[in-house]
C-alpha cells in the first residue's frame, strides 16, 4: 500500500508541476471582453445561444491542446514557428493580425476599467490615464509572474455567477430544451453574437500566449499527457463560467428586456446573489480582470513580435537595450487607452465588438496552426489525429461560413 500511495502522490505532484498555462489561459477568457460578451448574449438572446457552448468547449479544448503539444514538441512559440516554417512575409501578416486584435482587446480592457470605475463614480478621464500608467509601471517593475498569479486568483470571483445563476431559479427545462433543440436565427445580430462568443472564448492571442507559456515553463515531452489534461480542464472551466454568466443574465435581464448599455446594467445579473451589493461585486470583478489583462495582453504581444523578428526582449532589460520591445508595449497601451478617452466612447460596445473582431480573425490563426501541426518535419510523430483535424478544420470552416453569412445578412 505505501508504494501505491507514493505512486499516486508522485502523479499528483507531476500534474501540479505541469499545470498552469492551460488553466491560466482559460481564465483569461474571463476578461472584460468575455464578461461583456456573455452578459450581452444572455440579456439579448436569453438561453437561445447556450447550445453553442458544448461545441465551443470541444473546439477550445482541441485548439488549446494543439498549442500545448506544439509548444512541448518543438520548444518554440507560435510566432517563432510561423517565422521558421513560413518565412518573413507570412510572419509579418500574422503579427499584424495579432497586433490588430490585441489593440482591440487592450481597448476593451481599458473600456472595462473605465466602466467598472464609473460604477464608483470615477470618471474615465481619471481612471484610464492612471490605469495606463499603472500598467506601464507594473511591467517596468518586472512583476509579470506575480501579475499572472493575482489575475488567476482574482478571476475566481466569477464563481459568484454560478451562485447567482442558481439563486435566480432559472427555468431549467427551458434551458435544457434550448441546449438540445435551440431556437436558431439568421438575424445579423444573432450571428454576430455567435461569432463574438466564439471569438472571445477561443481568442487568437490566447494561442500565442498559451504556446509561449508552455515553452517558457519548459514541459518535457514525457509530461505531455499532464499538460493536455491541463488544457482540457481549462477549456471546461471556461465553458462552465460562460454558461453560468449567460444563464444568470438570461434569468435576470432577458425577461425584463434589459439591454446592457453600461456596466451597471450587466451588474444586475448578480443581484440574486449579492442583492444591493451586486454593482460593487461586479465592478470589483471587472476592474480586476481589466487591469491585469491590460498588463498581460500588450506584454505577450510585444514578446511574440520581438521573438519572431529577432529583437531583444525582456522586462528585465532597460528600454534602450530593447527598444523594439518597449515601443510595441507602450504603443499597445497608448493605442488601447486612447479611444476610451473619447468623451462619448460606448464602453460596452467596444468590449463587445473587439471580441467580434477576434472571432473574425480566429480562422486565420487556426489554419496556420493546422498547417504547422500537420507537418512531420516540425512535429515528428506528434502530428494531429484525424479527429482533431476534423474539429479544428470544422471550427475554422464554420467561422468563415458565419462571417460570410454575416456579410450577406448585413448587405441584404
Amino acid at each position, binding site marked *: 500500500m505505501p508504494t501505491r500511495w507514493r505512486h499516486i*502522490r*508522485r502523479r499528483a*505532484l*507531476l500534474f501540479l*508541476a505541469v499545470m498552469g498555462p492551460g488553466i491560466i489561459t482559460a481564465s483569461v477568457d474571463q476578461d472584460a471582453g468575455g464578461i461583456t460578451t456573455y452578459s450581452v448574449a444572455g440579456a439579448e438572446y436569453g438561453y437561445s445561444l447556450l447550445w453553442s457552448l458544448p461545441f465551443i468547449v470541444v473546439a477550445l479544448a482541441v485548439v488549446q491542446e494543439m498549442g500545448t503539444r506544439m509548444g512541448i514538441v*518543438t*520548444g*518554440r512559440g507560435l510566432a*517563432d514557428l510561423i*517565422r*521558421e516554417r513560413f*518565412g*518573413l*512575409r507570412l*510572419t*509579418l501578416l500574422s503579427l499584424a493580425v495579432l497586433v490588430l486584435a490585441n489593440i482591440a482587446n487592450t481597448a476593451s480592457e481599458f473600456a472595462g476599467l473605465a466602466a467598472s470605475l464609473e460604477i464608483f463614480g470615477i470618471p474615465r478621464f481619471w481612471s484610464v490615464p492612471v490605469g495606463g500608467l499603472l500598467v506601464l509601471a507594473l511591467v517596468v517593475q518586472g512583476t509579470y509572474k506575480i501579475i499572472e498569479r493575482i489575475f488567476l486568483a482574482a478571476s475566481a470571483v466569477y464563481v459568484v455567477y454560478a451562485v447567482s445563476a442558481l439563486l435566480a431559479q432559472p427555468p431549467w427545462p427551458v434551458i435544457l430544451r434550448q441546449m438540445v433543440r435551440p431556437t436558431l436565427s439568421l438575424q445579423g445580430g444573432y450571428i454576430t453574437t455567435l461569432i463574438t462568443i466564439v471569438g472571445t472564448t477561443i481568442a487568437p492571442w490566447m494561442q500565442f500566449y498559451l504556446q509561449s507559456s508552455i*515553452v*517558457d*515553463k*519548459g514541459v*518535457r515531452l514525457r509530461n505531455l499527457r499532464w499538460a493536455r489534461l491541463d488544457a482540457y480542464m481549462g477549456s471546461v472551466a471556461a465553458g462552465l463560467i460562460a454558461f453560468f454568466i449567460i444563464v444568470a443574465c438570461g434569468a435576470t435581464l432577458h425577461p425584463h428586456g434589459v439591454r446592457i448599455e453600461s456596466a451597471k446594467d450587466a451588474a444586475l445579473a448578480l443581484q440574486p446573489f449579492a442583492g444591493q451589493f451586486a454593482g460593487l461585486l461586479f465592478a470589483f470583478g471587472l476592474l480586476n480582470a481589466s487591469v491585469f489583462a491590460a498588463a498581460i495582453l500588450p506584454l505577450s504581444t510585444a514578446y511574440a513580435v520581438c521573438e*519572431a*523578428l*529577432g529583437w531583444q526582449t525582456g522586462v528585465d532589460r532597460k528600454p534602450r537595450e530593447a527598444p523594439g520591445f518597449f515601443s510595441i508595449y507602450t504603443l499597445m497601451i497608448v493605442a488601447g487607452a486612447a479611444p476610451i478617452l473619447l468623451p462619448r466612447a460606448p464602453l460596452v460596445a467596444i468590449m463587445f465588438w473587439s471580441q467580434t473582431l477576434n472571432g473574425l480573425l480566429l480562422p486565420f490563426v487556426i489554419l496556420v496552426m493546422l498547417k504547422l501541426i500537420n507537418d512531420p*518535419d*516540425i512535429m*515528428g510523430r506528434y502530428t494531429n489525429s484525424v479527429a482533431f483535424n476534423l474539429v479544428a478544420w470544422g471550427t475554422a470552416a464554420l467561422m468563415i461560413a458565419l462571417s460570410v453569412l454575416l456579410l450577406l445578412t448585413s448587405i441584404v
Partner: protein
Amino acid sequence: MPAVFFTQLRHRALVDAEGKPAGRLEDLAVLPLGLKPPVTKLLVRGPEREEWVLPWDVVAEVPPDVEQPIRLRAPLAGLSPVALRPDEMRLGKIVLDKKVVDTARKKVVRVNDIELAEQGGRLQVVGVEGGARGLLRNLKSEHLAERVARLLGRELPREVVPWEVVEPLETELTRAKRQAVYGKLAKLHPADIADIMEELNPSERAAILTVLDEETAAEAITEAEPEVQASVVQMMEPEKAADILEEMEPDEAADILSDLPEAKAEELLETMEPAEAQEVEELLEHEEDTAGGLMTTGPVAFPPALTVAEAIQRIRDEAKEAETIYYMYVTDPQERLLGVFSLRELILADSSQRLEQLMHPEVVSVRAETGLREVAELLTKYNLLALPVVGGEGELLGILTVDDVLNLILPMIWKKRAVKKFI
C-alpha cells in the same frame, strides 16, 4: 568579390545552356565544414514544379543583377539529378529565419539573411545577418532597406555574424541527421556556455546540454543562474540529468536539487548512483545558507599514524576527486577531527615523519549549522582557504572552501556598495 545574399538567390529563375527556362532555385545545400562552408548543391523547382537536386558544378554564372536568371552549363535534358547527403545542410531550411547562437558575442540572433561570396567559381557561406537591414532585404529587397534608411535619416548598418562563430540552434528533429553539432559551442569556456544558456528557452538549453560531454555540461550548469539551473535539470531526460549531477561537486548538486519540486528531486536522486546520491542527500538535510548546506563532503583525511611518504602516496591514489588538497585533515577511527596540515607543510616535511607530529592540533572549525556570515568572517580573520565542518561529536563532516562562500558573499557586498554610492 561582391557579397551575394541568400534571399536574393532564393526563388531566382534558372536558364539552361540553350537559354531555356529550367525552373527556380529553391534552396542551397552546403557542407558545413571549415570557416567558410562551400555550397555543394542546389535544390531546384523544375519547370513542371518537380523538385530536383543538382550539383553546384552545373552552374555557369550567377549574375550580380538580381533580376537576371542564374545560368547553367548544360542543356536541360543533359542535367542529371543527384541526392542530398546526410551531412549536407540546407541553408533555407536549417538556417534562414531560424535562431542561431553568435558564440563570439554570446547572443542569440534571428537569421534574416545569409551572406555568401564567390571564390574560384564556388559559392561560400561567409556569415549570417541579423538586424533591420537584413530583415528588409529578406522582406523585399535591398532597395527597400535603402529607402527606409533614407527615411530615418541614418545608416542601417549590416549586422553580419561570421560563420566561424555561428552555431545553428537545431531542434530534435533536424539534429538527428548530422553529427558534429554544437562543436563550436563545446569549445567555449563553461562560463560562456552558461551565459549563452541564459539567452535560450528551456528546451533549447536541454538540447545543447545533452550534446555536450557530461563534465562540460556540469561546469556550465554550475556557472548558470539558479533559475536556469533548475529549469535545465527539469527539462533533461532524468538519466542524463543524473549523470551530470554526479559530475558536479556534491554541494553544487545539492543546491540545484533543493530548488526543484520535491517529486523531481526525489526522482533524480533515485536515478543517480547510490554513492553520489547519498552524499547529496546528506547535504540536502542542512539549511541552505549554513556551513552544512554549502560544504563539500568527503574531504581528504588521514589517520594520525601515517607517515608523510604514505600520505603523499595516498593523495596520488585517491585524491583526484577531492575539491581541494591545500588543507588536509587528520581524524581518529571515529572520524573525529584531530588536526590539520597544509600541502606545503606536507611536501616540505621529512618523508618518515608521522602526520601526528606534523599536524596542528588547534583547528579552526565550524559546526554544520553555523551561518554563512560567520563562516566568511572566520575565513578572512584567519586567512584560510578552507574550513572543516564538524558535527556534534567533533566528527569531520566536510569542508567549506573560500569559493563556496565567495559566490554568496559577493552579491551582499556589492549590494552594500551600491547602496552607499547613492547615499
